[in-house]
């Protein structure tokens, strides 16, 4: 029975693709004469129901498996944002009705659920994902079915898709500001420590190029698998190399083991500080006092003094499924739903092509907790302020550095002369 229904689903999906393609072709033909007709027919091709007084959205987060540690909070903050938007009148007057799916820390499941959300639940857009692997699993599906996916986590860049909006930082909004901060501190030697997967490898490739330009010497580079906590052997190498600073691209629970081994080896923030790109307000408490005094590079911190941040913090603390603190990925997830609201309002429609056309005007903004962000209609990323925070005893971050203005997203680092085209191609191909 299950195999029959699977085959049926495949047939339906294949049928939908053919119809979409045919209508898209028809749309292209019509566009010369009448643009709105083209957009309209494409909306008919997707099965999104816009006739009632609700609109369906899909939330796709890992609620089970290893990544549930991080993605559960993103799912909860999306629910909060949906409730807020509904209380304020909804999207184009329609209440959001969300379908929550579990990606289960399994990348094929992410692809499968995306297809299900788009073809069976007929959602207007999907929000979620955390790991780059999950995003890369979703990408071909949303591109094939012409859906929309909003991705809320900082990542390694070198990607853009007409069907994905990225509300977390790309490398020039997190990695490069961190390097600028190190240069401003007069750092001469740097050690790179990361988990062994695509984000740290790509980030470190970029760091090495920029370090050469800044005159910072890389004195070592170490990777440990994501699922391994023991960093003692690698920390021994760091202690022997005596760097001015450690650039930490470790992700997940492995960070706890790294910080403990660092502390045990007698390394201290006074002599060998760490700058991290994945330790935020949510992660710091699990590391105890041993992480205090080190640095992190993010766009958003709970301690930011902006006009909209107090309300965001207050709403989250009052929310029943709250974890108590706000953090960068949560804020980016919060932005993603409001960015979609701004997009459909500008487009006056839930149609994917109309939404993308509205984005192209480069006028979509949102007064986010990190400040007023602007959507880049070409690469589908948003402008962000760079901030460096220092972890205090309450596991909050004291802001010690800020970029002088909002940083425009540049996922392919095309505006940086030290980033050669052949390496861009090599890294883009490797990230596949």
């Amino acid at each position, binding site marked *: 029975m299950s195999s029959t229904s699977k085959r049926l689903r495949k047939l339906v999906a294949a049928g939908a693709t053919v119809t979409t393609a045919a209508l898209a072709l028809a749309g292209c033909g019509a566009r010369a004469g009448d643009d709105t007709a083209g957009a309209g027919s494409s909306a008919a091709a997707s099965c999104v129901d816009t006739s009632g007084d609700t609109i369906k959205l899909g939330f796709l987060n890992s609620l*089970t498996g*290893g990544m*549930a*540690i*991080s993605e*559960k*909070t993103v799912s909860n903050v999306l629910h909060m944002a949906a409730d807020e938007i509904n209380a304020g009148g909804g999207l184009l007057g329609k209440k959001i009705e969300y379908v929550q799916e579990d990606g289960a820390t399994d990348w094929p499941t992410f692809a499968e659920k995306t297809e299900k959300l788009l073809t069976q639940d007929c959602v207007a857009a999907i929000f979620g994902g955390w790991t780059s692997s999950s995003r890369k699993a979703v990408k071909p599906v949303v591109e094939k079915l012409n859906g929309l996916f909003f991705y809320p986590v900082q990542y390694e860049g070198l990607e853009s898709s007409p069907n994905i909006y990225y509300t977390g930082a790309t490398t020039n909004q997190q990695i490069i500001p961190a390097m600028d901060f190190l240069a401003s501190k007069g750092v001469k030697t740097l050690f790179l420590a990361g988990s*062994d997967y695509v984000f740290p490898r790509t980030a470190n490739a970029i760091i090495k190029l920029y370090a050469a330009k800044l005159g910072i010497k890389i004195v070592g580079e*170490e*990777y*440990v*698998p994501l*699922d*391994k*906590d*023991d*960093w*003692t*052997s*690698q920390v*021994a*190498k760091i202690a*022997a190399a005596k760097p001015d600073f450690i650039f930490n691209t470790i992700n997940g*629970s*492995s*960070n*706890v*083991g790294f910080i*403990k*081994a660092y502390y*045990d*080896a*007698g390394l201290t923030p006074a002599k060998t500080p760490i700058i991290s790109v994945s330790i935020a307000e*949510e*992660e710091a*408490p*699990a*590391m*105890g*006092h*041993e992480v205090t005094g080190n640095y992190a590079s993010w766009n958003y911190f709970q301690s930011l003094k902006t006009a909209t941040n107090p309300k965001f913090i207050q709403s989250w603390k009052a929310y029943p499924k709250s*974890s108590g603190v706000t953090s960068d990925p949560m804020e980016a997830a919060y932005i993603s739903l409001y960015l979609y609201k701004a997009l459909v309002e500008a487009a006056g429609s839930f149609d994917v092509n109309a939404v993308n056309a509205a984005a192209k005007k480069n006028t979509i903004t949102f007064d986010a907790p990190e400040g007023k962000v602007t959507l880049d209609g070409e690469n589908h990323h948003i402008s962000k302020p760079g901030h460096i925070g220092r972890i205090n005893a309450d596991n909050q971050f004291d802001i010690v550095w800020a970029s002088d203005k909002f940083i425009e997203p540049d996922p392919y680092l095309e505006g940086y002369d030290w980033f050669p085209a052949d390496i861009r191609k090599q890294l883009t191909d490797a990230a596949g």
Partner: protein
Amino acid sequence: MDALIPQLLNGSAQGALLLLAALGLSLTFGQMGVINMAHGEFLMIGAFSAYLVQQVIAASDLSIPVALPVAFVVAGLFGLLLEVTIIRWMYRRPLDTLLVTVGVGLILQQAALQIFPSQGVPVEKPSWLDGQLTILGYAWPMRQLFTILLAAVCVAALSAWLKYTSFGRRIRATVHNRDLAETTGISTRTIDRLTFFVGSGLAGVAGVAASLIGGTNSQMGAQYIIPAFLVVAAGGIGQLKGTILAAWAVGVALAFFAYWTTGSLAQVLAFILVIVFLQLRPQGLFTVRTRSLA
């Protein structure tokens, strides 16, 4: 070769943690033939017990010594519950216990995720484990010395228990020949339960040690379960001394490979070694001579 001695110590500490995780398995898998994939989650239960003890006793200097027996009992009781409700219906069906306990492990992981902060909780190291002890000119982190000492104490206690108490003798009798043990009036049911309690309790103790080294969260058990099984298999099933030697060898191999190559490659190389060894010597380092037909 300046790194030789520190890495030897580091490897011994890694081996000691592996041994703590494998000790319980050497009882439940080695002696009873139960493949308990939820053993890693019992380790997690031990770590969370340490966190809960720290919520009651704020001073971490005192809380860790208290947490060790508490974790032993709490994880042991979970093990007992698993034995009474599920495992006892499945003796002599190792593949079924494997599948069922994978499921139990997933349920325990998800329960921890629902109960505790999803990113995990901090277990604070007592101040007497801070810093390093300088012996023979080398700085030895106190935490590593503690792990080694804890493993040594657990091994000594376990082997003394197996060797000198009447319970220990009955366990050994049951392992060597279950049917004959029963005919001499030993309640193998009671023995099975007790063995499972102690084996799971040891995972709890390992959990406290692990909470001082890495993160305490719902996923922590996963990284110990496979290496622990490999160590038990390489040591020779049902052999305590084999488990000890194998754990130490794997720990030292991991430390040196990680120092000479990379953290990722070290795992691969260390486990290739174990697999090659098992190909050459499938029965493991040491074997038990039994008169049983199985």
